[in-house]
């Protein structure tokens, strides 16, 4: 028996070996290997993104245009969900049971442990009701997001909208993560970087169920979100509202610019839409509806419609003629009215007409002769055409005027190559392209470009880049807006034009479009439309001396320039200059606002 008691040493040795082995293993695990500390940190660390509020947008007078409202996302953590009253839940959220089921399945597929968004952007009103009952639903919680809110349902096209980032946005800029919002058009897009601010991050410790247990290292490593910068736009809210009222139930566009600065005072594309339609949960549905609307409310006519400028373009052709000295103040061209060739004149007026007459009367033969003289001045028509074209470019036609308008189009300013292709090189001349003389043919100009031309005329030969943002909080607006752009035409050549334009507002039209207390200048345009009633255009600036506002108005199917576009333009200018509309014009104002031109065929 005694020799067996030696075996106790073997047994103790076994204990000791296990103890030593475990000690070594523990030493390796706890002391030598530092990976586990990192794993433990990763386990408990949750980074919660802090979304900054987007910058606000004000009008030029400091009136608020765009601000933020709180919305709530409802999140689900599938693992924590317990049986709940789905009927009540669906009623609270106003969704269908099978829709809920689908959403829950989707969340489960994403992760059973991590929260994912079940329902986005619940309004504060709806959320308040839901929140009272939320305790009944285990595994659901909310997060706060900010959504855009508008003080007035105007300027939708200028302000643009915000939407969820696409895969391409994420690829282009690492800042964005799936589910983030990004400006997708208008100011929201152009000034996205300033408006969005900087996302912050808060580090929390979570337990195994992903429930937040407290801040990580007392918030030492948190980065607060930086709210977006506020913008002061150049828009005049009152003028914008007024212009939209005048254009309601019409198709067309209005652009008003302050000539001395290039600041866009109002920019309307009609029909327009309420910008708040493209916010929040209803956005997708509304967007589809707007997209399907045959009147194309999403189409920004002020930047994207390539209208033939019609008679409003005659001013520019005349100015080119004067600068090129192919005509002068003494030049008169015969007008045979409807018998004129190759372009007949639709107006009854003195003949032969000089420059002032031609502008006042919108004389087609005068303009044809002027245009021909420009093209014929040079050895070949093509050379003359290129000179003409250079002036048109100087006026801002056929090119993008400003970065402020991300959706703006260049418009069509035909190149020599186009005509060479159509007619063959050297086989075309002024006659071939005569439509250009009266602002038709291959010419396609956006309302912004036309307003800018008017701007240049009001300034007698120069303009500043038309832009929409006046100031950025704690930042500067790009310097290009301060650069004077010369159109290459001497100031003196503008005087006869301006006189002619001034006379336009004083003749037959004085009663309709006269502005109390201000002498102003304008030019009508009636653009032939093979598909229905002609389009109505008017370009104007006021006052005549030291102009404060230049306007271009285009009303589709507006029949004549003086029928809708001219009164609308003058009402806008009166409103802007005088703040009120003279009593005698209330009737006109009412008629403009009530006119419904959505039917393409209008009575003559």
């Amino acid at each position, binding site marked *: 028996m005694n020799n067996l008691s030696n075996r*106790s040493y073997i047994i*103790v040795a076994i204990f*000791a070996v296990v103890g030593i082995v475990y*000690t070594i293993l*523990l030493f390796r695990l706890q002391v030598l*290997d530092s990976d586990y500390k990192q794993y*433990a940190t990763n386990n408990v660390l949750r980074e919660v993104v802090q979304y900054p509020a987007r910058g606000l947008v004000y009008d030029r007078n400091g009136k608020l245009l765009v601000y933020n409202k709180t919305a709530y996302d409802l999140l689900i953590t599938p693992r924590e969900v317990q049986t709940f009253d789905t009927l009540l839940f669906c009623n609270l959220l106003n969704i269908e049971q099978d829709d809920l089921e689908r959403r829950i399945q989707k969340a489960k597929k994403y992760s059973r442990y991590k929260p994912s968004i079940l329902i986005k952007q619940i309004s504060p009103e709806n959320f308040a009701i839901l929140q009272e009952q939320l305790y009944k639903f285990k595994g659901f919680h909310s997060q706060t997001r900010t959504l855009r809110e508008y003080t007035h349902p105007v300027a939708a096209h200028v302000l643009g909208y915000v939407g969820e980032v696409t895969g391409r946005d994420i690829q282009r800029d690492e800042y964005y993560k799936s589910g983030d919002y990004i400006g997708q058009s208008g100011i929201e897009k152009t000034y996205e970087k300033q408006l969005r601010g900087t996302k912050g991050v808060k580090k929390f410790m979570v337990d195994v169920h992903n429930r937040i247990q407290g801040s990580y290292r007392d918030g030492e490593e948190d980065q607060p979100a930086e709210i977006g910068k506020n913008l002061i736009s150049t828009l005049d809210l009152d003028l914008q509202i007024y212009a939209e009222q005048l254009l309601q139930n019409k198709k067309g566009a209005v652009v008003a610019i302050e000539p001395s600065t290039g600041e866009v005072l109002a920019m309307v594309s009609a029909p327009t839409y309420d910008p708040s339609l493209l916010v929040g949960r209803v956005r997708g549905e509304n967007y589809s509806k707007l997209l399907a609307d045959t009147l194309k409310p999403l189409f920004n006519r002020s930047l994207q419609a390539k209208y033939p400028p019609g008679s409003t373009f005659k001013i520019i052709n005349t100015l080119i003629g004067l600068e090129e000295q192919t005509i002068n103040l003494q030049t008169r061209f015969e007008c045979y009215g409807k018998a004129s060739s190759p372009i007949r004149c639709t107006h009854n007026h003195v003949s032969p007409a000089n420059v002032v007459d031609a502008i006042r009367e919108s004389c087609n033969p005068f303009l044809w002769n002027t245009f021909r003289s420009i093209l014929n001045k040079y050895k070949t028509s093509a050379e003359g055409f290129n000179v003409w074209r250079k002036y048109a470019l100087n006026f801002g036609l056929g090119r993008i005027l400003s970065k402020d308008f991300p959706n703006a189009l260049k418009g069509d300013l035909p190149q020599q190559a186009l005509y060479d292709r159509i007619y063959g090189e050297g086989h075309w001349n002024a006659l071939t392209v005569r439509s250009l003389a009266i602002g038709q043919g291959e010419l396609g100009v956006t309302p912004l470009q036309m307003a800018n031309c008017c701007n240049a005329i009001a300034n007698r030969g120069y303009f500043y880049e038309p832009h929409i943002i006046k100031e950025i909080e704690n930042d500067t607006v790009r310097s290009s807006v301060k650069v004077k752009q010369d159109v290459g035409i001497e100031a003196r050549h503008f005087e006869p034009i301006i006189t002619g334009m001034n006379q336009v507002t004083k003749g037959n039209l004085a009663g309709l479009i006269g502005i109390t207390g201000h002498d102003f200048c304008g030019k009508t345009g009636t653009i032939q439309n093979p598909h229905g009633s002609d389009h109505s255009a008017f370009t104007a600036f006021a006052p005549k001396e030291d102009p404060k506002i230049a306007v271009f108005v285009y009303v589709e199917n507006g029949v004549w320039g003086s029928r809708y576009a001219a009164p609308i333009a003058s009402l806008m200018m009166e409103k802007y200059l005088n703040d009120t509309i003279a009593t005698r014009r209330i009737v006109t104002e009412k008629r403009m606002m009530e006119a419904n031109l959505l039917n393409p065929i209008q009575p003559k």
Partner: protein
Amino acid sequence: MPRRNNILANIDWVTIGLYLLIVLLGWLNIYAAVFNEEHQSIFDITQRYGKQLMWIGAASVLALIIMLLEVNFYVFFSFIIYGLLLLTLIAVLFFGTVVNGAKAWFTFGGFAFQPGEFAKFATALALARYMSSYGFKLQKPKSLLTIAAIIFLPIAIIILQNDTGSALVYFSFVLVLYREGLSGVVLFFGTLFALLFILALVVSNLTLAIIMIGMVMLAYLVFNPKLKQFAYVFMVYAVCLAVFILADLVIKTNFETDQFIVAGAVVASLFVMYSSIKRRLPNYTKIAIVFIGSVLFTISVDYGFDNFLQAHQQVRINELLGIESNPMGAGYHVNQSKIAIGSGGVWGKGYLQGTQTKFDFVPEQSTDFIFCTVGEEWGFAGTFLTIVLFLTLFIRLVWLAERQRSSFSRIYGYSVVVILFFHFMVNIGMTIGVMPVIGIPLPFFSYGGSSLWSFTILLFIFIRLDASRLEQLSV
């Protein structure tokens, strides 16, 4: 008749001190494991630390009762206690509640009770009683069979309860038998087969065959270092292997190369066995037999693993052996447990400061994975101290067992220490990922009334026996 003061004087206060220290440390770590800001009162019995305090109180009462009982009570009633507990175990099979997949619990009200825990001390008593009986000889087949029956009865019932982990504990009695004279060969084969078991599952059959053939050649060389005879044996193996490998290349069969190699080695071993018997070289005979046995064992392990083990058991064994690794699946426990312990560093994160612990990343942390709390909040200093504390207790108990006059007390004492040791080894081993996750508690440390009471009873019966070591027991 023993006198009270006599007993008091002979109580081993060192063991009781160690016991109290471990229980206290266990409770502190349970408090940390379930701690939350809302319930801070240590007496809050809705919380586990509050309950554990109750269990500790009750365990003290139990210990006192055990100390007060007549020492011969344990000897006299050992078989009856054993029988009663077997009946209880069987009753659980029919009336028990399923917890964590095992039908091993009785529940009354809010409390659960696990009879399997108590079967350990009962088995130890029965074993001690049987092996200390007059005229007992371990070597007799009848003795071995009876011992096997005493040990395997509870194992069988516990396996039926689907609580394989608890059943494994009973294999620790092998060490007791070893102390009482069981041949060291049993230990040798135990270790050999454990190694083969692991290798059979971890390495490819071909690798294993090569390892085994290498080992057997080494054994021939070591145990009979006569070069001439070894060269002969070597030739036998070389020829047999060559023939079988050639056969594999020439004949197209459904068998794999490794099967041919193994077959060749087995044939060679049989040949060596035959000729060594003739030439009276018993070492060669034994080695050859062991080799053939090992081959048969590995084959049956592969077959048994695929055909007899349940899916979750396969997964857990695979996890342990590193064959499958899925940190989010079955390996989740161990992974989080290692993170908890590993992130503790040298000095730990501080009491109640463990993030893994506080935020419940480790499942079952107050029970089976309580050691994680030690590792995370007290660091290597804490884990080392805990290991030292347990080893001190074990060595103390071995020393106490050895000083017993009666074999009943000695055998019971060894039973106590090997049961405690097995729990210690497997429990800590699984928290650091070197043992399979079989849910068995860390003695005195883990939360749970049943386990604390059963370990207390187990230990204090021995302390009681030890206190009366100078008396003659009525075996």
